């Protein structure tokens, strides 16, 4: 599913069909396996996030456009959808509730037509700056035009309107989940199809070398603009699903923080492969719902993960997976497994110590009133005792030293294996 590899004639082979059917099956079965209220809520949010991150990656990974304002399009899609939902409830809009995401999509597309024209005039740093400006602009508007945005409180609507169709009222969360699942699958297929069209391929060319594109007959601004509009449509669909799911839109949905999240998790999942943002989207929801329950410091942990990722694996999780699959294909993964175990063990020690320190600092800052002790993974730490601080620091330091030692050996082994594979490939070419 790599966006840039060329399969022989690129047609949808049996292997692709298997992947799509498997994806559909997972979506159908998931809520039957994880049937708690929380799980179904999370699955719904994952669908919404997948469409948002994939649409963001049309810009970042496929077009080389670093946008800091993608939430403008998903968020405005949410607002328009909420208004549409209210209109449906008021009897002024005669469409079924299940089409609300399409309304969101058209809204996202419309705003992309409008705002994208200016945005895509330039590429690179200028593009990034303009998206940041527009993001701030729309974010500020959310509080300046309360008639449309609802001010601080936002705008709420009820998704259970009109008569149930075939017994589906969209009252229960599970019904909303299945609607979201259908849209997620359709949008994912649509965006994957886009990567195999002339415009999709020229978007890659513009990413790699905009100057040369001009000399083979294409207007780079048009390529960026048209792609931006399509990305805006899918962002809007995700916004529409958000509106249906939460039945409210607040200023936060168009805000810079949400735009930052799209960037963050798309990058984390991997912008260079089509499926990368899907991984990122799942992590986004897991981080938000589960990690934020576990610790107050979760944003700090996320920041650390992002930092390490940018430095050590700029291709994101997807590229890590693909690199290891390549190793496995050449029979070299087995020799590396023992190193992975060593990396994991030393990494856990390092993390354990560092996390204990972080949790104690957070406890001092925010929970000092609850007494000097805190529970950390079953361990009782005392922020007033030197032993706790010293112990955590020693564990962190020892873990870090061991991890670095293992990492260096691992890097050398990895390099050797990589070198062997390439040498073999060259030898085959010569033969």
């Amino acid at each position: 599913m790599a966006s840039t590899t060329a399969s022989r004639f690129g047609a949808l082979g049996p292997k692709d069909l298997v992947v799509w059917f498997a994806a559909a099956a997972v979506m159908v079965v998931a809520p039957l396996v994880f049937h708690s209220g929380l799980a179904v809520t999370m699955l719904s949010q994952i669908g919404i996030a997948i469409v948002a991150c994939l649409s963001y990656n049309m810009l970042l990974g496929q077009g080389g456009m670093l946008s800091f304002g993608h939430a403008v399009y998903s968020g405005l899609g949410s607002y328009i959808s909420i208004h549409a939902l209210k209109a449906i409830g008021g009897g002024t809009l005669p469409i079924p509730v299940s089409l609300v995401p399409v309304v969101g999509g058209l809204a996202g597309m419309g705003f992309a037509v409008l705002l994208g024209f200016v945005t895509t005039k330039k590429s690179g740093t200028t593009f990034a700056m303009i998206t940041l400006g527009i993001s701030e602009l729309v974010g500020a508007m959310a509080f300046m035009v309360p008639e449309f945005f609802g001010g601080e409180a936002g705008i709420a609507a009820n998704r259970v309107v009109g008569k149930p169709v075939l017994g589906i009222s969209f009252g229960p969360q599970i019904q909303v989940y299945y609607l979201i699942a259908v849209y997620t699958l359709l949008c994912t297929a649509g965006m994957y199809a886009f990567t195999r069209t002339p415009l999709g391929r020229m978007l890659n060319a513009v990413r790699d070398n905009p100057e040369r594109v001009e000399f083979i007959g294409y207007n780079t601004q048009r390529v960026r603009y048209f792609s931006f509009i399509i990305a805006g449509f899918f962002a809007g669909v995700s916004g529409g699903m958000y509106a249906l799911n939460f039945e409210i839109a607040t200023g936060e949905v168009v805000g810079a923080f949400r735009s930052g999240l799209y960037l963050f998790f798309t990058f984390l999942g991997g912008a260079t492969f089509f499926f990368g943002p899907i991984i990122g989207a799942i992590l986004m929801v897991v981080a938000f719902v589960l990690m934020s329950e576990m610790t107050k410091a979760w944003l700090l942990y996320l920041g650390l993960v992002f930092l390490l990722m940018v430095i050590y694996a700029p291709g994101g999780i997807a590229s890590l997976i693909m690199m290891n699959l390549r190793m496995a294909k050449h029979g070299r993964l087995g020799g590396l497994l023992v190193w992975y175990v060593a990396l994991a063990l030393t990494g856990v020690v390092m993390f354990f110590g560092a996390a204990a320190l972080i949790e104690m600092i957070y406890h001092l800052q925010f929970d000092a009133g609850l007494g000097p002790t805190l529970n950390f993974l079953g361990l009782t730490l005392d922020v007033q005792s030197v032993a706790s601080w010293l112990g955590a620091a020693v564990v962190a330091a020892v873990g870090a030293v061991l991890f670095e030692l293992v990492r260096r050996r691992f890097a050398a082994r990895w390099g050797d294996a990589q070198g062997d594979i390439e040498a073999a490939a060259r030898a085959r070419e010569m033969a």
Partner: protein
Amino acid sequence: MSAGYAVQLKGLRKSFGKTEIIRGADLAVAPGERVAIIGPNGAGKSTLFNLISGRFGPTSGEIWLNDQRIDGLRPFEIARLGLARSFQITNIFGRLSVFENLRCGVLWSLGYKYSFWKFLAGLTDANERAEALMHRIKLDRKRDTLAMNLTYAEQRALEIGITIAGGASVVLLDEPTAGMSKSETSRFIELIREVTVGKTLLTVEHDMGVVFGLADKIAVLVYGEVIAFDTPPAVRADARVQEAYLGSVLADQQAAQAGH
């Protein structure tokens, strides 16, 4: 009107700030001619190519392509009118495969434009043309290799491939053999000759062996003016050329040959 020329320059001038690089260049290239543009460093050869291909707009003067005025048009507009160029510094799509690079070069000329309602896999004509081109530039064994992983000589071949992919009638090659070894160069010249049959060809070249091997006519550019434009023997004999530039080079070459 410019009577039937493939490329015609009339009083072309280009200044960067106060410095005038091209100072009234005139040139008329007939369809199918192979022209080498030579001249000392800083004569404005690359600037001339950048003007013709639309990378820069001229300060004054006219540029005609197949009886159509093109000065002031943008690069993609000029490309659509049938002019293609290559670059001195390799300018390809690094993270796309060899095949994808060539297919990108083919798409516009077959009318696929910005379409996103057709699959690339279904574009039989584009795929066949890209495949054929890949064989012609002898990169078919590297079909799925990313362009950035090719050797230098292969990248130069791909550069030429992308240039001719759109089927342009006028082809501008900016130092196609720059940085190549002697044996690579001679093979490469053969390749250029093969793939540009029937096209109007303009090249900028430093290697005199290449110039005399490839060109029907030589244009000598000195300080932003075309001081001579004729067949190789006539240019060799031209007193102004010898004085301005070629004399020293030819003298060196003759001395070298005498030494053999």
